[in-house]
């Protein structure tokens, strides 16, 4: 990574952190308490943006998997893995924050309502994606199998979205908010979306570099890493 890129990346993370701090401050001290649910409703400002960003991460994995099957370039596989990894992590946060909210609002941690069930299925589908990755030895075959699987797994995303609208569900399908609450919700979308993009891009970079290292380890005569490109590779792979 060049010095300029490193400075830009640092600025990106600092801005995301500052926005997260600002959003916490606004939700804690400036957003009014909801009349019927009280303080517990404030979980919603984190829960909804993370849920939407889970869909975005799943979409990145879906689009990258299609691109991989079309072009067979390994970078698309690296991006699909990054999207799936972040989708698992974000989906876990959605379920945990939802469960904590449910414990207080409904009096139970979990109920098998359509949206909750489809959300749990979504998490499990992307966990299985990594189980499959670990079980196929050939890298090329692994990438093809996982790309097909990721495309099928994405079909659960519209089910999660539509389940509360099309089926009787304890989970609210839509929420009407006061203008101040809407502003807080919009503010929370900023740091969560920046965090999501940052996680996907960083996970993608780690995947690419891990793959290049693995290739170099198998083939000492292979090209050096991009950071060392242009210089002679001394002593082969680490």
């Amino acid at each position, binding site marked *: *990574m060049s010095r300029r890129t*490193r400075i830009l990346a640092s600025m990106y*993370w600092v801005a995301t*952190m500052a926005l*997260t701090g600002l959003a*916490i401050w606004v939700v804690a001290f400036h957003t009014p308490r909801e009349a019927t649910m*009280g*303080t*517990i409703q*404030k*979980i919603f400002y*984190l*829960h909804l943006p*993370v849920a939407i960003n889970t869909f975005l991460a799943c979409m990145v994995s879906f689009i990258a998997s299609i691109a991989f099957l079309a072009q067979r370039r390994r970078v698309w596989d690296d991006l699909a893995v990054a999207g799936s990894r972040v989708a698992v*992590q*974000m989906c*876990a*946060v959605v379920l*945990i*924050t939802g469960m*904590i*909210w449910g*414990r*207080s609002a409904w009096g139970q941690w979990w109920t098998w309502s359509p949206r909750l069930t489809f959300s749990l299925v979504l998490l499990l589908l992307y966990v299985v994606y990594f189980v499959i990755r670990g079980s196929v030895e050939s890298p090329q075959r692994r990438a093809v199998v996982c790309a097909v699987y990721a495309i099928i797994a994405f079909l659960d995303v519209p089910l999660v979205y539509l389940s509360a609208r099309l089926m009787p569900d304890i989970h609210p399908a839509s929420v009407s908010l006061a203008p101040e609450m809407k502003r807080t919700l919009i503010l929370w979308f900023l740091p*969560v979306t920046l*965090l999501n993009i*940052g*996680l996907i891009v*960083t*996970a993608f*970079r*780690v995947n690419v*570099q*891990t793959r290049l*290292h693995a290739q170099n380890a198998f083939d000492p005569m292979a090209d*050096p*890493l*991009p*950071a*060392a490109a242009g*210089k002679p*590779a*001394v002593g082969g792979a*680490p």
Partner: protein
Amino acid sequence: MSDLGYTILAYVVGLGLTWGYGLLLVIRCMKFDNRGEGAES
């Protein structure tokens, strides 16, 4: 636990998981960058 306690718990767990994961990724990325620079020098 009170409603405030549950709300704080949700934010701590939610943000802790996302930022914690982000930090891990950034550290891994920096390790690769340092290795690359080591190969360069």
